[in-house]
């Protein structure tokens, strides 16, 4: 067993972990990155398509290129120690209040890291068939879209010849194009909602370009096949939400991809006693992205599922600077509550402060052009913003300058509510 002492431990070496580690190390602190895989980069490595980094680098990169840039920065930084093929299994606390991260490394066996602060940057996992309950047999040939993406883009394994995709999330859409390009037939994408859950540009470039049908308001009601999938039954949903059995039809296929959403990976955090936010399934955090457990912070997809990596980087970098303040012994300032109002699925962080600017991220529940965003503090309007277009698949970022809080009585309790109409 090895024991190591550092200022901060970052769990996960994806885009969030790398940006957080860099920002902590730039302030002169020793950081350890714990990464389960044999390389840094996380999910980006399997996202070989274009479309990353427009905000961060002002150009469109592929996932691996975006990861490579950060990997190069991380490798150059002497304050960062990288532990690959090392899995964090538990977070505990020493008597003196410091945190201990228990890990298992392929090379060194058990390593215990003690640190003043821990950053959760473990990313998210995919929802699977269990989460959406489809009737029928349990044959081979059913993959989550992200797993299929990894198999195809990293190992070169083609999952099947005829594919039906359940759910219109971005990973499924991107995979529709990718599979078509390797000669697999994509027979359709089935979406239960009346609108796609992925980005419009992915509908256009990954489905329309290849005339792949998108069945909105439809469900896969049954999966057939003994050893391998042989077909699916697809059923429309009527306007009042009922299943319209009579209009069902079948498609023969050997493979099904599930692209039905992502959820933050929280097992580790839950065991450490971190309070979970039921709107995001990630941790509940204060204005400094600290969870309910002192000294444990969270960012990236481990906090909430992001659609754009540039936001992950921004959030993680900021998280790193809060970690720095915390290690320095900065006292936690009084914080107001942040709550979601009309048409907001969730808003983060769950608190805000009045002595500095705040960046909030929220996800809308509706699709709309020319929407308006309203911010109220203790039911009084403080800010209004026009939004050209909103949809649930696109996160909204809000910058609150500290001037907004000029007229707020600092000693009172206050609640900030964000709504859209």
């Amino acid at each position, binding site marked *: 067993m090895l024991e190591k002492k550092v200022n901060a431990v970052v769990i996960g070496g994806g885009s969030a972990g790398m940006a957080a580690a860099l920002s902590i190390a730039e302030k002169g602190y020793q950081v350890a990155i714990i990464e389960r895989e044999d390389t840094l980069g996380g999910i980006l490595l399997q996202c*070989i398509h274009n479309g990353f980094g427009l905000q961060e680098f002002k150009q469109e990169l*592929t996932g691996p*290129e975006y*990861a490579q840039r950060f990997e190069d920065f991380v490798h150059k930084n002497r304050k960062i120690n990288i532990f690959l093929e090392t899995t964090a299994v538990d977070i505990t606390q020493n008597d003196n209040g410091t945190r201990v991260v228990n890990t298992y490394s392929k090379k060194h066996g058990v390593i215990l890291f003690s640190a003043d602060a821990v950053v959760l940057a473990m990313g998210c996992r995919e929802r699977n068939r269990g989460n959406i309950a489809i009737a029928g047999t349990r044959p081979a040939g059913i993959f989550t879209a992200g797993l299929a993406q990894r198999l195809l883009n*990293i*190992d070169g394994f083609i999952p099947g010849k005829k594919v039906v995709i359940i759910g219109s999330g971005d990973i499924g859409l991107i995979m529709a194009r990718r599979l078509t*390009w390797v000669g697999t037939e994509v027979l359709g994408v089935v979406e239960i909602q009346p609108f796609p859950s992925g*980005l419009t540009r992915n509908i256009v470039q990954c489905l329309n370009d290849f005339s792949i049908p998108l069945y909105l308001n439809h469900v896969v009601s049954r999966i057939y096949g003994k050893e391998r999938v042989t077909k699916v039954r697809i059923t429309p949903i009527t306007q009042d939400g009922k299943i319209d059995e009579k209009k069902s039809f079948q498609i023969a296929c050997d493979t099904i991809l599930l692209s039905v959403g992502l959820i933050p990976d929280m097992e580790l955090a839950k065991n450490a006693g971190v309070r979970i936010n039921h709107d995001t399934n990630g941790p509940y955090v204060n204005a400094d992205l600290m969870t309910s457990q002192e000294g444990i912070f969270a960012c990236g997809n481990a906090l909430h599922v992001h659609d754009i990596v540039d936001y992950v980087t921004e959030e993680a970098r900021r998280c790193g600077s809060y970690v720095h303040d915390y290690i320095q012994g900065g006292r936690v300032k009084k914080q107001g509550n942040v709550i979601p109002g009309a048409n907001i699925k969730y808003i983060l962080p769950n608190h805000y402060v009045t002595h500095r600017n705040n960046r909030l991220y929220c996800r809308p529940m509706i699709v709309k052009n020319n929407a308006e965003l309203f911010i109220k503090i203790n039911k009084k309007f403080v800010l209004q913003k026009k939004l*050209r277009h909103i*949809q649930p698949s696109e996160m909204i970022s809000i910058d609150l300058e500290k001037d907004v809080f000029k007229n707020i009585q600092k000693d009172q309790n206050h609640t900030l509510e964000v709504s859209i109409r």
Partner: protein
Amino acid sequence: MEKKLICISCPVGCHLIVASTRDRITVKGNQCKRGEIYGKEEMLSPKRIVTAVVKIRKKEYCYIPVKTEKPLLKKYIKPLLKELYRLEVDLPVKCGTVLIKNFENTGINVLITRSMKN
């Protein structure tokens, strides 16, 4: 000829109707100039960035990601993919290296998008 398209130049996603006659192309449904440019381009010479993976020689289940440096005319996508699936590369490789120069005289290069050691 008439085509129904969705403009993807910004998140609004206007539904365009692009019509072409022998001497001109008209775009309807766009809310701004960029939609017109997008519609015309899609009608005349649609292009896409192509990404794929290429096999690493003598290694099983080991592939390296690649992309076209600029968008490629759509009609060249199939031939390019065919060429990419035929190729094998040797390690080590460096992110940004040119794998194919000026593919079929289109002026488009194919780049490797990740560094990998042996």
